């Protein structure tokens, strides 16, 4: 299935755009999405392991299945405050 992933901060900068379309297996998980992002944006390599992912507005674990049409975002380590 096709996932439209929102990107922020370093992820947006390295990808050169605020969203990216990625292909993951049907019933794929966050791990699959992370692999697809890493391949699509090689420049993320050093930081990719510390990027978390959100489905809707909640953090999701690596083994969480991604529902079809889910709103998914890549969350690099945060630095607000």
């Amino acid at each position, binding site marked *: 299935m096709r996932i439209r992933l929102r990107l922020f901060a370093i992820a947006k900068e390295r990808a050169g755009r605020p969203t990216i379309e990625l292909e993951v297996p049907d019933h794929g998980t966050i791990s699959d999405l992370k692999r697809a992002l890493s391949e699509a944006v090689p420049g993320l390599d050093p930081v990719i392991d510390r990027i978390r992912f959100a489905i809707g507005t909640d953090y999701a674990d690596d083994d969480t299945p991604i529902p079809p049409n889910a709103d998914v*975002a890549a969350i690099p380590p945060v630095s607000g405050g």
Partner: protein
Amino acid sequence: MVELTESPIDYAAVVERVRSPLAGAVCAFLGTVREMTGERRTSSLEYEAYPEMAAGKLAELEAEARSRWPIIEAAIVHRLGKHDLGEISVVVAVSTPHRAAAFESCRWIMDTLKEIVPIWKKEVWADGTEEWVHPGT
């Protein structure tokens, strides 16, 4: 009350929102743009958020703090966009009957905000370079 805003934060207005005759204590925290980081000089900061999720996480922080401490009122306001030196990026204000809970809850909110709320800071250094800040990387 939680808020994300592009405008300068009126911290006194935030504090006024939490003051109450039920409270004996108010603790307020202001995050401000510091010029020096070690030997490096900052020119400005740029804050970006995943706004829907950041607003949701801030509301979760307020709710969780209210479940842990006897909070009368709490307010968390984070500014986004460009910040000049000395400007305020975040204000947390909490009122409680007694002072220990005010200090502890205000600090817990700030500490946890910096761990989980999807907001990012970009340093614009005085030498013209720019750098996203991603702790631990």
